[in-house]
């Protein structure tokens, strides 16, 4: 059994090991020991803070195997994306072109540098060891963050987004960057990522990136093809988040053209389809009653924990029956509240 819980200082070595296993496809994940330490400290302070208005908080979760306490995954969620700057993205606008005289009607896509994601909450740093073989624990890790947000809505904005790394070729060149960013930055993709340190909220972005919309038909074919395409390591989170209700078409990354998924919280299943239930003791063996898989999260902000269980359908019940192991994992007792969502 896996549990998702807030990161702790003792997780540093485990996170270092995880970072070594991740490639460039997860550019928002802290990779050096300093960066990991800083991220953990910041997360602990964020969980501990009393929050009225979402600001610089960032919450980091780890996926822990209950059997051997091994850390097999990491995922974060930030209260606001641009807390120390402006978060830039390309908005993928569609311009309708209609000429009745000429009987022409088509639509043209244009990419506009925009800063409207600045106040949204951002999901980042999602990584699961052996992601090619990941099972339901990947769903658990990805969605637990949003269950936390559903439990603590004042800590987050009304809208959420997730930037996913775009595609690069075998030489680490991004066709989207070659067609766009390079013309303004005059440097390689990886060099540019280094100077901005993976961030999208730096002053130099507004100094260098184009101020006027980029008409997509003018881009070379390979750059157009790269728009909204995800790096192979991003396929898993893309699938999980799409199931959750995120939509990919409105924004793309300004550097590599990778997809930026976004959604209003009212469109996310963790918000709209989660059910608040009370824990009841599991009956012994309940035979062959049909079972569903649920994500179950402790309904509290300060010792948030989440697991998956199989359970009889709870739609028509006020309770969910949990086994003792599940209660231990959640650090809860019978009668406590949990937030559940079918996965």
């Amino acid at each position: 059994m896996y549990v998702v819980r807030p990161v702790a200082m003792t997780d540093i070595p485990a996170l270092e090991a995880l970072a070594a296993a991740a490639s460039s496809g997860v550019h928002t994940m802290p990779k050096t020991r300093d960066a990991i330490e800083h991220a953990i400290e910041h997360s602990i302070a964020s969980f501990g803070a009393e929050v009225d208005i979402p600001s610089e908080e960032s919450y980091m979760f780890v996926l822990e195997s209950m059997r051997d306490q091994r850390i097999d995954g990491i995922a974060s969620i930030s209260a606001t994306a641009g807390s120390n700057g402006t978060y830039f993205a390309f908005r993928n606008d569609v311009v309708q072109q209609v000429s009745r005289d000429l009987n022409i009607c088509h639509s043209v896509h244009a990419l506009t540098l925009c800063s409207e994601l600045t106040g949204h909450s951002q999901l980042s740093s999602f990584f699961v060891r052996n992601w090619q073989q990941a099972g339901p624990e990947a769903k658990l890790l990805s969605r637990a963050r949003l269950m936390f947000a559903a439990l603590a809505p004042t800590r987050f904005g009304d809208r959420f987004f997730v930037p996913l790394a775009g595609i690069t070729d075998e030489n680490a060149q991004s066709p989207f960057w070659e067609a766009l960013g390079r013309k303004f930055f005059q440097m390689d993709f990886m060099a540019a990522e280094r100077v901005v340190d993976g961030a999208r909220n730096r002053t130099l972005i507004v100094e260098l990136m184009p101020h006027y919309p980029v008409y997509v038909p003018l881009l070379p074919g390979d750059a157009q093809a790269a728009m909204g395409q995800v790096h192979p390591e991003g396929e898993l989170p893309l699938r999980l988040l799409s199931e959750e209700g995120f939509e990919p078409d409105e924004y793309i990354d300004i550097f590599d053209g990778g997809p930026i998924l976004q959604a209003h919280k009212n469109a996310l299943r963790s918000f709209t389809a989660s059910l608040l239930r009370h824990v009841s003791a599991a009956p012994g063996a309940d035979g062959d009653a049909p079972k569903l898989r649920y994500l179950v999260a402790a309904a509290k902000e300060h010792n948030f924990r989440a697991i998956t269980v199989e359970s009889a359908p709870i739609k028509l019940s006020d309770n969910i029956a949990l086994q003792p192991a599940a209660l231990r994992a959640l650090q809860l007792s019978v009668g406590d509240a949990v937030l559940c969502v079918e996965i």
Partner: protein
Amino acid sequence: MLVVRAIRETDLEGLLGLASQVGSGMTTLKPDRKMLGARLEIACASFAETIAPNQRDYMFVMEDTASGKLAGVCAIKGAVGLDEPFYNYRIGTLVHSSRELKVFTRMETLYLSNDLTGSTELCSLFLHPDYRGGTNGKLLSKSRFLFIAQFPHLFSAKLIAEMRGYQSADGSSPFYEGLGRHFFKMDFNHADDLTSLGKKSFIAELMPRQPMYVAYLPPEAQEVIGKVHVNTAPARRLLEQEGMYFEGYVDIFDAGPVLQARISELRAIRESALAVIDAAPRAVTETTAAANEPLLVSNTTLRDFRMIVATVPCEGGHIALSTADQQALGCHTGEAVRTLSLNPRKNVNV
């Protein structure tokens, strides 16, 4: 002798004959009797001053006085863009610079503009192939500058001329293929024809409105911005000699350059001068013809404006014109004519 003169109602057949020689690529001079007839009417009203200056369209024909045939045509439109919007791309510069990264990027940018609205336009220049050679092309093209110098109050402060843009050997426009086609989804010639028919609202409907970095275009399209069609290069040089410059405006379809000038700074305004026709020219012309430089000489009447090239002495406000020249200009000894050296003097300081 060749005389350039104000067009007359009786020139319609001759004009149609000329237009039938033009071929494609010149949208304002098509052999369409109705269109040309309407234009001729406006031209005649322009010289008669029965319509407002900014509606006028002064057309000039070059007549071979020996045969009475029309050898060429050219025109000056009083003002463009006042009935239908007149579109160009303007090339500007944007600098993207980051001190932190020590990056300084200078980017050329295309702005869709109507900046030239209201300008006076030189247009519709065509010389019959039989008459190409010698100073004929210069006379025809430059005649308009002498007309402007004689009647500067009739024109806007700004003078423009649209030059046909660069085409590949197969007749396609690399600029159109790189830009316009994505938005118009039709062939260049089709789009160009529609604009000449005045159907311009589709430009507002289909053209990208936002400024665009030139660097987004394919290299072939970037390279031809402001370049003229190979056949147009001589015409461009003639206009540049008169003080017209490419100032960054180009055609929205083929990126051909617009040449422009302040009328007050034209060579014709600065250097043309009035001269009185001398009573006894003959002896002088015979002795010193070789030493004289060719002059554009015009009369000073709007309604029957006439102009020739003469290689005669002109000094101290007097000019020696033969009887034939005087007849061609409709002038007599003792009357004033306006003169301008056909070729510009070299500027010793530059």
